C-alpha cells in the first residue's frame, strides 16, 4: 500500500503544533464552551427538572455530563467544517501545485489532510474529557476498568467517523467554492441546523416533528447516541428522560456514520479530481 498520505499528515501536524495560536485556540475554545455554556445552563436545567425523580435503580446524570457530548460534537463540527479553508489557502498560495504536479494520487491529499483533522478532533476530545472532569462531568460511572477502556475506544471510533465525514464534506465545499467568504457563509449556514436539529443539548422526543425527522438523518445525532452509550451506559436518566440504548441502536448509528463517510469521501474525491489547480 502506498503511504504518501502520511507525508501530507506529517506536514499538517507539524504546522498545527508549530503555529501556537492555532494550537492554543483549538484547545481553549471547547473548554470555554463547556465552562460558560455548560455551567450556566446546567444550573438552570437542574432547577427546571428537579421535580422529576429518576426511576429507582437508574443512573441519574447531571446536565453538564449530558451536554458534554454536545460540546464534543460541536467542537468536532466546527474544527472539521472550517478545515476546508486550509485546502483553499493551499490552492491559492500554490502549495497544492507542488502536490498535484507530483505522482502523488489526489486521494492522498484528501486522506492526509483529513487524517490530521481527525487527529486534531481526538486531541480536542481528550481536552474536553479532562477539563470536563474538573468542572464536574462524570463519565463511566459504575463501569469496570475493562469496560471503561473499551468505552473510550468506542468513543474514539465515533469521533474518528464523525470527523472524517465532516472533513470530506468541508473539503468538497471548499474546493467547489472559490472564495473564503463564500465558504464561511456556507459553513455557518450548515453548522446551525446540524447542531440544533440534533440531540446535542436536549432530547429530541419533544421537538417539532420536522426538526425531529431532520435529527434522525443528522450524523451529529448518531455520533452523540454512540458517545452517550459509551460514556454513560445503555440505561440512564437525564433531562427528565429515561434513556435506554440497545446494541441494535448503536449499530444503526455506527452504520449511519460509516455510510456518511463513504458518501462524503466519494463526493470529495470526485471534486478534488475535477478541480484544476494551476
Amino acid at each position, binding site marked *: 500500500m502506498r503511504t*504518501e498520505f502520511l507525508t501530507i499528515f506529517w506536514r499538517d501536524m507539524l504546522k498545527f503544533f508549530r503555529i501556537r495560536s492555532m494550537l492554543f485556540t483549538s484547545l481553549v475554545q471547547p473548554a470555554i464552551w463547556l465552562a460558560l455554556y455548560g455551567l450556566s445552563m446546567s444550573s438552570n436545567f437542574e432547577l427546571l427538572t428537579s421535580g422529576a425523580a429518576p426511576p429507582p435503580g437508574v443512573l441519574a446524570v447531571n446536565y453538564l455530563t449530558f451536554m458534554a457530548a454536545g460540546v464534543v460534537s460541536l467542537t468536532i463540527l466546527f474544527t472539521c467544517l472550517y478545515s476546508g479553508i486550509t485546502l483553499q489557502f493551499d490552492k491559492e498560495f500554490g502549495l497544492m501545485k507542488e502536490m498535484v*504536479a507530483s*505522482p*502523488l494520487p489526489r486521494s492522498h491529499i484528501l486522506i492526509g489532510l483529513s487524517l490530521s483533522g481527525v487527529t486534531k478532533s481526538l486531541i480536542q476530545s481528550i481536552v474536553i474529557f479532562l477539563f470536563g472532569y474538573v468542572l464536574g462531568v462524570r463519565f463511566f460511572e459504575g463501569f469496570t476498568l475493562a469496560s471503561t477502556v473499551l468505552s473510550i475506544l468506542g468513543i474514539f471510533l465515533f469521533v474518528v467517523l464523525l470527523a472524517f465525514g465532516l472533513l470530506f464534506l468541508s473539503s468538497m465545499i471548499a474546493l467547489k467554492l472559490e472564495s473564503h467568504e463564500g465558504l464561511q457563509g456556507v459553513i455557518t449556514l450548515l453548522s446551525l441546523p446540524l447542531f440544533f436539529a440534533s440531540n446535542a443539548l436536549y432530547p429530541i422526543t419533544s421537538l417539532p416533528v420536522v426538526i425531529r425527522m431532520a435529527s434522525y438523518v443528522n450524523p451529529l445525532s448518531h455520533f452523540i447516541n454512540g458517545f452517550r452509550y459509551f460514556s454513560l451506559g445503555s440505561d440512564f436518566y437525564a433531562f427528565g428522560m429515561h434513556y435506554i440504548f440497545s446494541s441494535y441502536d448503536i449499530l444503526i448509528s455506527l452504520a449511519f456514520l460509516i455510510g456518511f463517510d463513504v458518501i462524503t469521501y466519494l463526493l470529495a474525491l470526485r471534486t478534488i479530481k475535477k478541480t*484544476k489547480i494551476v
Partner: protein
Amino acid sequence: MVFNNRPAIQTGAAEDNVISVDNLRYRYGKTVAVDNINFTVKKGEVFSFLGPNGAGKTTTINLLTTLLPIQEGRVSISGFDVEKQPDDVRRSIGIVFQNPTVDWNLTAWESLEFHGRIYSITKEVRRNRIEELLRVVELSEKRNTLVKHLSGGMKRRLEIARGLLTRPVVLFLDEPTMGLDPTSRMKTWDYVKKINEEGVTIFLTTHYMDEADRLSDTICILDRGKIIANGSSESLKSALGMDMIYLETDDDVKSTQIIEAMGVASVVRSSAEGLIVSLKDGSQCMPKLLERIREEDIEIKNVNLNKPTLDDVFIYFTGRGLREESNETPKADNKGRGGNFP
C-alpha cells in the same frame, strides 16, 4: 511595419529530443491561449520561451507539466506521452513555479523532506540528496530556518533545489528570476548553468531578454500564443542578418528617405528617440551612410552601432517592443521588471 507573417526559423529535429510538442493548442473558453505550437527540445540544452506577459508561456508550461489537460495536440517528454502517461512524465521532471510554492511555516530542510516523500524517494537516498542539494544552493546553514525567514533569492534557490531532488531529466523554470535583485539573479543564473552542465535539460520561460540571451542554447519567441521565431540566440540575431545603428539626426524623416533610397539598409523603427536602422556589415557601410546624410546638410547628433539584442529581435518579429504590451492589466508582482527594457 508588419513582421508577424515571417516564417519561424525551425531547429533541426534530432533524434535525441527530450521534449517534442506537436500542434499544441489550448483554449480558456473562447480565448486561445496557446495557438497550435510545435517545437522540440534537445537533450542537455537550455531552451527558453521568451515573450511578454500573457503570451502563453505559463499555459504551455502547465500543459507540459500535466497541470492542465491536453485539449488538442500531442506532447511527449522523455519518451512519455503527457496525456497518456502523466505519472511517468511527473517522475521525469522537476518544476520551479513562477510564484513561490514553498510552505512558509516549514523549515528549508522540511520543505525538501516533504517533497522527497511525496515522490516516494527512499529515506537514505532522500536524506543524502537533501544534504548535497542544500550545499549546492548554499543553504546548508539555513536548513533549520523557517521558509518565511529566508530572503527572496534564498527561497528561489530552495525551490530550485527542490526541483532537482528527484533527479529530473528536464527542469522547468517558470520566470526563475522574477522579483529578484540583480545579485540574486546572477546567482540564480550560475546555478542554472551549473545544473545544465551536469546534464539536466532546462526549459525556462522569461520575459527578460538578457536572461534568455545569457542562458539559452535555443530561444523560442512566443507572442499571443504563437511561436514567431525559434532558433539559437545567434541564429535569431543573424535572422536580422545584420547590425543595428541607433541614429539621431535633426531631420529623421528625410534621413529615413535617404537611407531607404540607398538600398543597403532599412529603418526598422522611427520614434522620437531617433531611428533604428538595420543593415549588413554595419561597420563598413556606416561611414558611407553617414556621409550621404551629411551631404544633404542634415546634422547627426548621435550615432551608435550595435550588434542586435534580443529586444531588437523581438521588435523585428513582432513589430513592437516588449514594453508595448497593449491592453494588459499590470501584474502586482512586476516590481522586478525594470532595467532590462530598451
